[in-house]
């Protein structure tokens, strides 16, 4: 499968274009019969998901439109509920990351994943609030978007398809996501550890 997708052109102009974009980098993470969602992290050969979607020391299966592969669990950051899985040979488009500090309350956000095992489901909502650490850094992106088990580990994106966060949990009916910048920092750490 060759992709003509480029991240420089504006995407997500229509809902179907947004979905075309997402299907190129959103995967399914299967572990012991439970299903979560994962993000193919550009050309890094890694899938990012929630730590609670995998178990330390066990290798999950990664399902894409091309089939199922065994991934290898590389690293887990329990505090941030993040996990990195190595899946050699898989690559997606390079991702645009949206800083939570640039988000505006009320702007459209989309979650994409496999809620309750339903594959490739899109849900739409708006930014509710950004929860911050004491130092002002974004801790969670809170969205008024309907999530269910299975959305965990999947992307929260803006109307342009830029990654805003990784869906982490539901609290009071609101979707709570780990900011994309936190995920990117975790990816850098994992890469550095592998290179060392």
């Amino acid at each position, binding site marked *: 499968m060759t992709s003509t997708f480029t991240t420089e052109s*504006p995407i*997500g*102009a*229509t*809902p179907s274009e*947004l979905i075309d974009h997402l299907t190129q980098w959103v995967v399914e993470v299967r572990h012991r019969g439970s299903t979560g969602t994962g993000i193919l992290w550009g050309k890094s050969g890694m899938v990012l998901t929630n730590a609670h979607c995998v178990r330390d020391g066990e290798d999950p299966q990664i399902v894409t439109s091309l089939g199922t592969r065994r991934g290898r669990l590389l690293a887990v950051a329990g505090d941030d509920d993040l996990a990195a899985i190595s899946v050699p040979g898989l690559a997606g488009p390079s991702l645009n990351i949206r800083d939570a500090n640039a988000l*505006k*309350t*009320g*702007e*459209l956000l989309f979650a994409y994943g496999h809620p309750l095992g339903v594959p490739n489901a899109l849900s739409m*909502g*708006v*930014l*509710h*609030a950004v929860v911050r650490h004491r130092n002002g850094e974004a801790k969670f992106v809170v969205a*008024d978007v309907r999530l269910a088990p299975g959305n965990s580990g999947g992307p929260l994106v*803006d*109307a*342009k398809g830029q990654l805003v966060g990784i869906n982490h949990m539901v609290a*009071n*009916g*609101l979707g709570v996501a780990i900011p994309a910048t936190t995920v990117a920092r975790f990816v850098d750490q994992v890469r550095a550890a592998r290179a060392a």
Partner: protein
Amino acid sequence: MASNTAPLSLVDLSSQLSSTVERASQYVVAIRARRRIPSSGIIWRDGLIVSASHTVRRDGRVPVTLPSGDSVEATVIARDPETDLVVLRADGLPAPASRAESNESSVGSLALAVGRPGRATTASFGIVSAVIDGWRSHQGRRIDGVLRLDLSVYDGFSGGPLVSASGGVIGLNNSALAGGAAAALPTAVIDSVVDDLLSRGHVSRPYLGVAVHPVTLASSTVSQLQLDRADGLVVLSVADDTPAERAGILVGDVLLEITGTPLTKPANLYDALLATKAGEPVSIRLVRGDKTATLAVTPIDRNSGGE
């Protein structure tokens, strides 16, 4: 299928929604008059804030956080228990909310609920799922145009605005109106309640002093009295020192009409009374025993005086 409309641009819609919230946040305040998280309020007119009465647990002076982040003291000046609306006055408020066009609150209209349960504004997004005419408050008042919403309301949203996609206020969110489900009091009702509260200190509620229940008269009575219908309201009780007692209405009377309006359910009586003015006599036609009679009754304003 030919269509002239451009495909929906998510980016345009998204920026429209966020700028709507940005504009709305300029007239949404946080009211700190209960434990835990604050509730929201709308700057409704110059120097006036409206909110959901049940969220403002104190009378007198309450701290309010303005969109600028500054805190001011507002004073509770009036409440209407039936619509659960409270009006507060404060100095130094920014400009009041703009109103939406009336065609922006139909079933299916996009709507944003905006709250300020603290310093920052929060939002949720959905559609107007129903417009309910004839919604009844606990005390029986008929309220037209209550909005049921297909959107999530979160802690601290009550008292805040429901805004249209173009940014005007459609109503005031109040989950207490519909037993915890998302609902909003429409702008027109807020304006009329605020007018009453400012001019009189309360909302006028013409009152008779009877409790009634629907009944169907025996067909022999209907034919003997040559009535055009068998339904009426039987009087179950008459309160002391009320217009009904003064007019001579008795327990067991069956009320047929008030100023020509047929009475087949208690709601008809409430509605007919609301259309009257307290202090002006109305005529009630009733059946007592084997006769009909017409009595003149002068409703009083239940909410004046007292309390």
